[in-house]
Structures are given as C-alpha cells and as structure tokens.
C-alpha cells in the first residue's frame, strides 16, 4: 500500500438507493453527465469526480451505488467482532473476501473508496420518514472508522427532517441540509466548508479549493460577459452581402438577403448560447425557447415600427463595389481599418439607408455601375431596440444557465419572463449601454478597450442577477 500518494482529501457520497446521491455529486462537481433517474440502482459503479487545478487533484468526490444488502454485510462483520481499533480491518477483510461475489457488488463499490481513506457523506431524503432499516447501513459505516457527516436532501416538499436529525445524531457528528436542485454557490461552499471539518488535515486543502472554486465562478461570469459583449457587437455591426447580377434588385433577392441576415443573427445568438452553456458546464443542456424575434421590436417605443418594414428602418441598401473598394489592391495596411474613402461611402449609404426608402438608393447604384460589381447589403443593425432585445435574451439565458443545477435532467423552457426587462434594465443603465450601441452601429472599427468596458458593464448586470443575492429563481424543467 502506497499511502503517501493520496494525501488529498477524498469524500464518498453514500446512502440508500435513490436518495439523491448522484444528484448531490452532480451538483458539487458541476457535472451534467451524471446518470440520475428516479429508478433505484441507477448508479452501479463508483465514480470519481476529482477537483483538479492544473492537473493536480485538490480533493476527490465519489459517487457510489446505494446499499442493497446492508444487513447481510453487517451480520458478516459482527460475526468477526473485534475491538474497536480493529473494526476497519474486518471491513477490509470483507471486501477482500467478497471481491468477486456479485451479491455484494454494490456494497464493495461503495466501501472501497471509504477504505482508501475517503470521508463519508451519508445522504438521506428528509422528505420521507425515517425508518429503522437505515441503521444497518449507518452501523457498517461506523465500522469503517472513517470520519463522516450526514446530508439531508429533500426530494419532496414534505418534511421529516426533525426525526431524521434525531436519528442521524446518534451516528454522525455533523448533520447538514443540502438540496442539490436548488443550491446556490453559497450553499455549495458552505457544504464544502463542512466537508473540510471532517478531518483536521483536510481543512487547509479544502479551504484552498474553496478559494479557487470562488475564483472559478467569478471567471465564469467574466467569460460570459465577454462572450455576450462580443455577441452584441458582432450582431449589431455585422454586414450581410449578396452579389446581384444587375443594378436592380429583384424581390426574391431582397427576400433572400433579408433571410440570410436574420439567419446570420440567429446563428450568432445560438453559437453564443452554446459557448455560455459550455462555460457553465452545461454542455448537455436541453432547452426550448422562442426564436430571436424580428417583429415588433418596440421595446422602448421610440421606434415603434418593426425594423424590417421597408421604409425608414429599411436597411436594405444597394451598394456597389469593385476591387477598388474592397480588394487588397486598395490597401494592404488598412484593410479592416475604415478608410477615409470607405468611411465617406459608408456615411452616404448609411444616411440614405436611414432616411430614405429602398428606391431612393438608386444613386448609389449608379456609382456601382461605374465601379463594377453590385451587391445588396444589409446591416449594420439600425434598429435601436435590437441590441437591448438581444442583450436581454443573452442575459436571461446566462442567468438561467448559471443558476441551473447540474443535477437537473429535464428540458428547460427559456421563454423570458415578461417582467425580466424591468429587473435588469433601468434608465441610467440604458443610457450607458446606448453609448456603446451607438459605436457598434457606426460601422467603424472598434477599439478593443471599448468592447472591454462594455463587457464589464454586462458583468455588473450579471453579478447583480446571479451572485449570492441574485434575485432570480432557476426555471423549472418542462416535461
């Protein structure tokens, strides 16, 4: 036995079948792949969930199958009764002797990590009454001689925790309540703190892990805000182009570019959502949500018509190009840098797009004739409400993902709560956001710093909604 290797703390989550062991592990390890179901016996093998920092394990959690033949195991142990200081050796003997006995598969799976030094986290369901049949299990755990605590989970609304606490108090020094489905970061950390108390030498490594875990959460927020900032910037500034053969655009061509543009925006949103889900370790999230709307974007009623009504907010412009404007020929250094020339042309197109309808743009088309190819262009987004709609949706999505328990396996409906807008957006925030949106719309190259500041602003919003005091509840699953 090389005991020196595994000096980091280990914890085995054990208990009766179907009492939420895997749910607790999924929540503590933020792992949404753990198999969780309401059928007892879902977990059949012990599984390790190491908390790793740069490849180094700081502590390790184990999910285990539930006890199946506790009385038989206890009977065996009691037949080999010895003095208290030898009891754990008897447990080891039991494991050694029954290694290949399928009868005790589950017990051995769950006892092994404990005998290798794991602290015990005994999980019970406090929403169901206590029963004497639990005593055999607790007795076996006592035989292992490992430090232990009990966690009361509430699978249901009913509450029997008082009788549970009385019973558990006889076996465990520490009895805590933890709900894997609704726990927030504060609860999470508080449980880790209790786990640290199991053994004196675990206190400092677990405390260190808690610190790192808090930073990790902080970084998730930061990364999310960066991703969202980028989404809004790109969506507002993105330009969709469609080459057309003549200087006159047909209705199909207009429809086509409009569709392309909308799809592009939707795809951007989709990709961002995926990134956010990955950041929060919800890679397997299943969700339902309404598509990004393009009608009735009258969030602030300042511009009440929909953006795609073909008049003022018609962004469909015909512009013209040739190698002279976009190719490398014009400029090696300044590709991507709005050129004086480009800026001037952009300004013309922009104002025309904003103040006149589609037909009035023929001026630009004539310019195209002399310069070469024609194309239809849509974007940057002129609608003032669009960035708020997009941002609101992104924030809502992020909050829901961030708050979502990793133990949930259902489909979440992300339809936005109608009161949500008032909760994140007030007039002063809108003013500060508008400054950025204006820059995004301008079509000019953005300084990296500006996007950074915008991201910081979003991070503040997210912190207000997700942090410990964050007021939003996680959404229930739909079935």
């Amino acid at each position, binding site marked *: 036995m090389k005991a020196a290797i595994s000096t980091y703390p280990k914890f085995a989550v054990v208990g009766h079948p179907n009492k939420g062991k895997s749910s607790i592990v999924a929540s503590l390890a933020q792992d949404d*792949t753990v198999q969780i179901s309401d059928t007892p016996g879902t977990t059949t093998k012990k599984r390790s969930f190491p908390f790793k920092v740069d490849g180094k394990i700081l502590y390790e959690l184990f999910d285990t199958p539930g006890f199946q033949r506790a009385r038989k195991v206890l009977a065996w142990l009691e037949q080999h009764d010895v003095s208290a200081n030898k009891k754990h050796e008897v447990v080891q003997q039991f494991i050694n002797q029954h290694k290949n006995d399928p009868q005790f598969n589950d017990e051995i799976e769950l006892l092994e990590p404990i005998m290798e030094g794991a602290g015990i986290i005994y999980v019970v369901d406090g929403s169901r009454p206590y029963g004497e049949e639990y005593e055999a299990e607790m007795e076996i755990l006592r035989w292992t001689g490992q430090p232990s605590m009990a966690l009361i989970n509430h699978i249901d609304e009913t509450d029997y925790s008082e009788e549970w606490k009385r019973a558990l108090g006889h076996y465990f020094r520490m009895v805590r309540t933890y709900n894997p489905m609704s726990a927030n970061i504060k609860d999470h950390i508080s449980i880790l703190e209790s786990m640290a108390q199991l053994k004196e030498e675990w206190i400092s490594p677990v405390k260190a892990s808690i610190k790192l875990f808090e930073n990790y959460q902080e970084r998730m927020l930061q990364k999310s805000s960066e991703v969202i900032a980028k989404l809004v910037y790109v969506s507002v500034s993105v330009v969709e182009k469609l080459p057309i053969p003549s200087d006159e655009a047909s209705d199909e061509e207009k429809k086509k570019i409009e569709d392309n543009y909308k799809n592009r925006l939707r795809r951007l949103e989709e990709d961002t959502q995926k990134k956010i889900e990955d950041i929060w370790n919800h890679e397997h999230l299943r969700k339902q949500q309404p598509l990004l709307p393009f009608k009735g974007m009258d969030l602030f009623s300042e511009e009440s018509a929909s953006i795609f009504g073909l008049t003022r907010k018609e962004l469909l412009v015909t512009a013209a190009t040739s190698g002279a404007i976009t190719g490398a020929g014009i400029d090696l250094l300044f590709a*991507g840098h709005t050129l004086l020339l480009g*800026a001037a042309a952009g300004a013309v197109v922009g104002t025309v797009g904003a103040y006149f309808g589609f037909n009035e743009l023929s001026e630009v088309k004539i310019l195209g004739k002399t310069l070469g190819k024609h194309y239809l262009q849509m974007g940057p987004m002129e609608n003032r409400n669009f960035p708020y709609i997009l941002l609101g949706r992104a924030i809502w999505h992020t909050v829901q993902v961030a708050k979502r328990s990793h133990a949930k396996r259902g489909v979440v409906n992300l339809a936005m709560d109608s009161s949500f807008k008032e909760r994140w957006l007030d007039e002063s925030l809108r003013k500060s956001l508008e400054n950025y949106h204006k820059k995004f719309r301008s079509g000019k190259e953005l300084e990296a710093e500006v996007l950074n500041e915008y991201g910081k602003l979003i991070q503040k919003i997210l912190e207000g909604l997700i942090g410990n005091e964050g007021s939003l509840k996680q959404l229930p699953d739909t079935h």
Partner: protein
Amino acid sequence: MNLRSYLDLYSLLQEDTSTPEERRAFGLSHVTVKDKPIEQLLAWMEEHRYQLKKPLLSEAFSSTLYSVSLTLVAIAFVLGLLSGIGLLSYNGHEPVNVIYFMSMVIFVPLFTMTLTLFSMLRANSVQSLLVHISPAFWMERLLQLLPHKTQEDLKNLKVNPLLANWIVIKRSQVIALAFSFGLLCALLGMVATKDIAFAWSTTLHVTPEGFHSFLSTLAFPWRDFFPWAVPSVELIEQSQYFRLGDKLSEEMVSNASKLGEWWKFLAFATLFYAIILRFLLYLLSSVGLKRAIRRSFLSLEGAKKLLSDMNEPIISTHAKQNEAVFRQTESLYSNVADSLDASYDLVLGWAIPKEQLTVISESMKVIAPRHYEVGGANTLEEDNEVIHLSHGEILLFVKAWEPPTMDFIDFLEALTKYVDKIVVYPVGTMQEQYRPREKEIDVWARKLSTLNHKKVWLKR
C-alpha cells in the same frame, strides 16, 4: 519585438490549435516571463513559430512593404531632385531667387513636421485624419491601384489601426527624407556643374539688415561653428534683386562670382531643417511604432484568450470518463392484484413496526391471525424464523417510498418456498393515509419483474 513578430503572432493565433492545457502548461513552465503579458506572448511565439506555414505572412508583408517603400523612396528622391533642379535653374532672365529654395527646405519641412507631430499625438485614435493626408498614405494608395499580385493572405490581414497609423507616419518620414536628399543632391550638383547667380527678392519691405538678422536666426544651429555658411550683410545687399531697375543688376554682374556664396547657407539649411530635423522625427516615429506594436500585441485577436489560458489555472470538477447511459426497463409487472382479499394467513410488514402494521391492516379492512415485522431492524435470523412459520397466502406491506433493495428480494425469494401466494402491497406514509404514489408503485413493479415469480403479486 518588431512588426515581424507582431505578424508572426497574428498568423500563429489564427492557425493555432493548441489546447488550453498546453497553453496553461506553457504559462506554468515559463516562470521568468510570468506577469509580463507581452514577454509571455513573445516567448510563446518564439516557441511555436516553427508551426507557421511558409512563406511566412510576415515575410510576404515585409517584402511587400519593403518594395513599396523602396519604390516610394525612389520616387520621392527623384521628385526632390527634379524640384531642386527646377528651383535652381537660371532661366536667362532672372537670377535664382533663394527664397523659393529656402521655403522648400525650411518652411515646408517645418510645417509638415508640425503636422506629423500632431498626427503622432493623435495616432492612437482609430482614424487619424492627419494620417490620411500623409503623402505616404496616398502615394501608396495610388501605387496599389496598379495591378500587381498580392498574396491572398495579405488581403485578409487586419492590422490594428493604431499600428497602421504609426507605420504610415514612420514611412512618411523616410519618404520625406528621400525627398530632402533629392533637394540636397540637386543643390550640390547644380552648384558643382553650373555657375548659379543667387538673388533674393520680395515685395515686402525688408531691409538687407533685417533680412540678415532673420537669416542668422535661421542659421542658429550652425552659425557659431561655420560662420561662413551665413550670408554676410554685404552679400545680402549685393544680391537683392528688384524686378524693375537696372542699377542693381550692374552691381550684381560685377559681383557675380560672390553671389554663388549663397549655396553654403542653402546647403546647411537643407541639411539641418530638411534632413537632421526630419531624421529626429524619424527616430521619434520609430519609437512610436515600437510602442504601438507593443500595445497592438495585446489587442491581437486571440491574444487575450491565449494570455488568460496561460495565466489562469485550469479547474476541472467533472468525472474522468462519461458514465454508461442508464436505461430504464419498461417491463410492467403483469401479476397484478386489483383488490385485496378479506383475510390472509399472515400479514407481514417490510420495515414496518408491528403496531403500525396492525393499524394499516385495520384501515385496509384485512383480517389475519398474525402480524410480523420483517426486514427493518430485524436480524436475518429473526426474518428466517418468520419465513419458516409462514404458509398459505401472505400479504406483505412495504413502504412505497423506500426503494426495494436486494435485501428485500432475497427475503421474498426465500419466502416463496414456503407459501402459495404473496401479495406485495406498497403503502404510502401515514400522512398520505397510506395511499402510495403511482410512480412509486412503478418502481416496485419494475423491481418485482426482475424476480418474476408467479407466486408474487403486486397490489396496485
């Protein structure tokens, strides 16, 4: 750190396939550059440069930049030479007015250098108008309208605007230098090959003394070292030229050989104002460009991510491997009893204490001679005793909410050997008036189907 390393990093970041783990390992293993983001980026680039596909983008860019610059420098030099020759040519009617040449080598440079200084200050703003009016910018623009092959990659290259501004500023200085050299060469060449009669003339009322003090002010950098390169009052008087009147032209003719002395002043003025000052500005722009490159490093697409990957610990909390997907068996138990009989030979309660068991029986209106608790806190021997005295039809109450364990199945299996029929009846909690939930009964049904014994019935 130079433009080349900037571009190499740019292309590396675009093609990079390194994993966050590799990046973090790099960050951890390069302790000397820790907390110095730019040094970290440089170190990372040095270590990964070999991955870049040849020809390097930076080489293509530099060579294009170099050849464009060279062309521009040559053009500027020729322009300088030609305008110098033009300014110094004696057209046969009038002597060469030094004022023209002076403005070309003193006032125009001073003015453009002031503009350059302004554009340096403003270079950080994304679009500096001053940069756009730079001759280098436009000459380059024109050059590139001429058809020539450019690398595909260069087409998509996005240089940071700040950097682009500084590149233009720096190159404008080189071009201006070339132009000034052209002027100087023209001056020296003309002086060597021709006899030029210099004169000065102005409509303004300037006395020769006044003009002299003005010139010696202009000559302040060299007048103490090379006094002969400052025109004397006498020379100035002799070379003043009026369009109308012939008195002075005679005097000029008699002093013709002296008038050539002007060239020394002009040469020094060119050297100082158009060349040395410009060169200082060039040095300044080099420094500016260096700093711009430094700053641009951090705003390169992907650089921030690379740095954070290097510097932030990788935290992972999830399991090593994925778990096999759990498949729920759908089989529903067919041995179902819809109703209870009025009496049984024995009523058992799995982990249900005896007092509670009798209460349940009563509430179900079931009569039985005996009630026993099995499982629960019983020992296995106690259970065995109950099994041995069992016979006939048994009603077995179980707590619906507790999952059926293998312990229970073992017991059930043993019991079947002694009895004719077992009705397993899952009951809810007392608070629920012993009514079980559908879902809970399903769990029991599934478990019983693993045993699948014809004597075992499920009451639902």
